[in-house]
């Protein structure tokens, strides 16, 4: 870093701090919209577009970035406390977050999530800033063939889940993949499995599927209990101990945070890839190389850290192609592009030469937002966790009402509310019969993406299947994928053998 860049960064840092009066209220707004299913930073910026355009460039930037970061973190709160992932990016969060809440460790889980999110977000912001020219090149190498392998990393989670009950796990995953294939095909837009519903032409909408499978079905289940928290795990009176415990647990696993947030960053810089892919891949990687893979899904802190650190890593990652190449990495970045073009900012390679303060300012706004967010939200975990003690006769109807509205919001179709309800019934039946809803959901979310990249690859190669092994990076990823499947089995066998030795 040369001295001029350092002086710009210092100047931008102090300027950004000066916008605390925008950042703090925006953080709370972001946490709220992130927490409500169906709402997101993207549609909030759209709704508030007149306000955003009326602000000067710097204020508008700070507002959008703070909202983006806070919404990402906010989505994890209901995912942990009531099993409602606010966005697809938080879909992997309840896998271990919600079991913790049910064990009366909601406050601890929130603290872990906040620490993982903030450190993951902050760290990846710094890395993105430092390695921007290199990271911007990732998209030049990660094409459809390579993305197929990345998708398989995430989808292989189905196999991990199936390990607990092979037949049921695979049936659930296969059902999810089948549901994911509903809609028009990627190449010729031929409708498949839409049952004549126009609303399904673009595939099964993610939010209704997400809230239906997780939240609505959970509401049906918890109504049979008095409170979410298991009877033998009644939460204690409000105290700071659980929060500090959560912070300590998370900080102790700092390597895990670093590792999984970098996964998020790398996936985030690939145009078109998103937080949902990153969080599942991070969870899968975390589980594969864990010494205690059997604890995943039961309320294991590492299973919560991985998706939260990764989806916040994506947040900074999406800025890289936007700023360096002028290609928005996701929906929120696309809207940022519109707002900034309104202010006359032109993106692309010349941005850091012509308007360096804009480019660096965005990353600085992100870093400052994470720091302020950490300080403002951590104390709240103590109060938020008490959602889990609200009697279910009040909580369950509220969850259903909120989630149905959430299902409606993204496209504003009544159909989507019915769909959320239908997925709720499917999820309830799955839970009651021992099928894992997460396996269904992974298929629904990642199946269409896998199909997209697969069909693109085949179309590009005129149907030659060997295209899957045609790139060097792709082949390296294939080997890594094979290793991530085989090595945990080998490690597991070795562990078992070691345990058996003393018994002899």
């Amino acid at each position: 870093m040369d001295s001029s860049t350092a002086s710009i960064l210092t100047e931008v840092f102090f300027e950004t701090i000066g916008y605390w009066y925008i950042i703090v209220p925006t953080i709370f707004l972001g946490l709220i919209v992130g927490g409500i299913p169906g709402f997101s930073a993207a549609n909030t910026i759209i709704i508030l577009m007149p306000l955003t355009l009326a602000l000067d460039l710097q204020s508008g930037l700070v507002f959008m970035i703070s909202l983006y970061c806070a919404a990402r973190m906010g989505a994890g709160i209901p995912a942990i406390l009531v099993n409602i992932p606010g966005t697809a990016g938080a879909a992997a969060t309840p896998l271990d977050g919600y079991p913790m809440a049910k064990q009366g460790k909601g406050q601890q889980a929130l603290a872990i999530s906040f620490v993982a999110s903030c450190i993951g977000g902050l760290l990846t912001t710094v890395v993105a800033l430092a390695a921007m020219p290199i990271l911007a090149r990732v998209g030049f190498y990660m094409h459809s063939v390579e993305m197929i392998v990345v998708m398989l990393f995430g989808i292989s989670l189905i196999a991990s889940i199936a390990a607990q009950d092979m037949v049921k796990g695979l049936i659930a995953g296969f059902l999810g993949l089948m549901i994911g294939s509903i809609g028009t095909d990627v190449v010729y837009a031929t409708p498949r499995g839409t049952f004549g519903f126009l609303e399904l032409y673009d595939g099964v909408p993610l939010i209704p599927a997400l809230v239906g499978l997780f939240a609505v079905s959970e509401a049906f289940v918890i109504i049979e209990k008095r409170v979410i928290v298991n009877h033998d795990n009644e939460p204690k009176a409000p105290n700071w101990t659980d929060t500090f415990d959560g912070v300590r647990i998370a900080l102790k696993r700092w390597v895990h945070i670093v590792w999984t947030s970098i996964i998020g960053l790398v996936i985030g810089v690939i145009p078109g890839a998103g937080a949902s892919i990153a969080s599942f891949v991070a969870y899968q990687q975390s589980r594969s190389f864990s010494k205690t893979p059997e604890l995943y899904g039961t309320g294991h802190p590492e299973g919560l850290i991985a998706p939260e650190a990764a989806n916040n890593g994506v947040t900074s990652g999406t800025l890289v192609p936007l700023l360096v190449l002028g290609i928005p990495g996701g929906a929120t970045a696309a809207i940022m592009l519109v707002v900034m073009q309104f202010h006359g900012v032109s993106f692309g390679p010349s941005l850091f030469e012509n308007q360096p303060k804009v480019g660096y300012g965005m990353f600085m706004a992100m870093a400052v937002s994470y720091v302020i967010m950490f300080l403002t939200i951590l104390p709240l975990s103590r109060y938020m966790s008490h959602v889990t003690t609200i009697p279910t006769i009040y909580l369950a109807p509220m969850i259903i009402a909120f989630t149905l509205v959430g299902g409606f919001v993204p496209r504003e179709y009544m159909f989507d509310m019915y769909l959320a309800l239908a997925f709720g019934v499917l999820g309830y039946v799955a839970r009651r019969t021992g099928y894992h809803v997460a396996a269904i959901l992974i298929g629904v979310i990642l199946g269409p993406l896998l199909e997209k990249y697969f069909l693109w690859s085949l179309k590009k190669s005129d149907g030659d299947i060997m295209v899957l092994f045609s790139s060097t990076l792709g082949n390296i990823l294939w080997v890594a994928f094979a290793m991530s499947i085989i090595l945990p089995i080998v490690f597991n066998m070795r562990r078992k053998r070691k345990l058996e030795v003393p018994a002899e």
Partner: protein
Amino acid sequence: MKPMITRRTLLGTGAAATALTLATPGLVRANTFPERNINVYVPTSEGGGADRNFRAFSSVWKEKLGTDFEPGFYPGASGRVGYEIYMGKADPDCYNLIFGNMGPEVLNWAMQAPSFDVNDYFYFGQVDKDPCCLFVGAESPLQTMDDIISAAKSRRLNVGTSRMAHPASIGLLALGDKLGIDFNLIPLQGGKGTVAGAVTGEVDFSVLTSGSVIAAGDSVKTLLVFGDNIVGEALDNAPSINDAYDMDLPEMLSARAFGIHRKAAEDHPDRFEILTTTFKETFDDPALMEAYVANNGTPEYLQYAGVEECEAFKQSMLELGERYKSLLSGA
């Protein structure tokens, strides 16, 4: 003296007054269209290009018409969902309009017929038109049309497009016909993906509407325009396909326009007249250009077209769609 007002005259006058009072709103209503907001069905997502374009135009049009516009967004299936809902559920009373794209959305009907008769609606006012173009990523090894033609001799080139049934795809296929090149179209699902595909090398180059290409800035370089290049430098002074290759291809355009049920225009000619007159007046107001540019529009693309031009455009898209159907739909 005979009283001035008898019981009979009082009752008669009262009845007449009552009848007049009751009838007045109806009489006035007939002459005061619109008396409530106009609903506009937008077949794409909120916050996208169509939304911005609609907001810019309606912000000025509402002043001429004396009422506000209420947009409803019905995205899905390349616009098909919005049109189906408009034609199936909206009353044909001139209070319901559709704001669509006469290029790709009409091309859809040729690929797969909708549930309604495509002649049951028509476009009456074009807001802007945006020619499609061919472009490469800034770092692509193919930097000229000659590079592309030369590379196409040794291998089949992959070309990104927003979707198969798109005017830009037709422009490329027509170019391939002319040059004897078999291009491989890869639908990259939307403008963002199409630009990214060319920039990152997922495909050899891409074709898209030029407004999105201009927005991509220095990351891309335009080599050919499937229409007239009226923005010059903004599209790297790329030549028109007809000039460069001595062709006679109609302009391949994305053209946003307001449409209406044919029945509404036939049943309520007075209302339709008010709509078309005020629509035209909007173009005469300099405030429109300001609003259009403020919403990221390319000033040169803001171009009026009325019922006849829009109908000709729609029919030409349907004909082109039929001609290239087998290549674009895989049928």
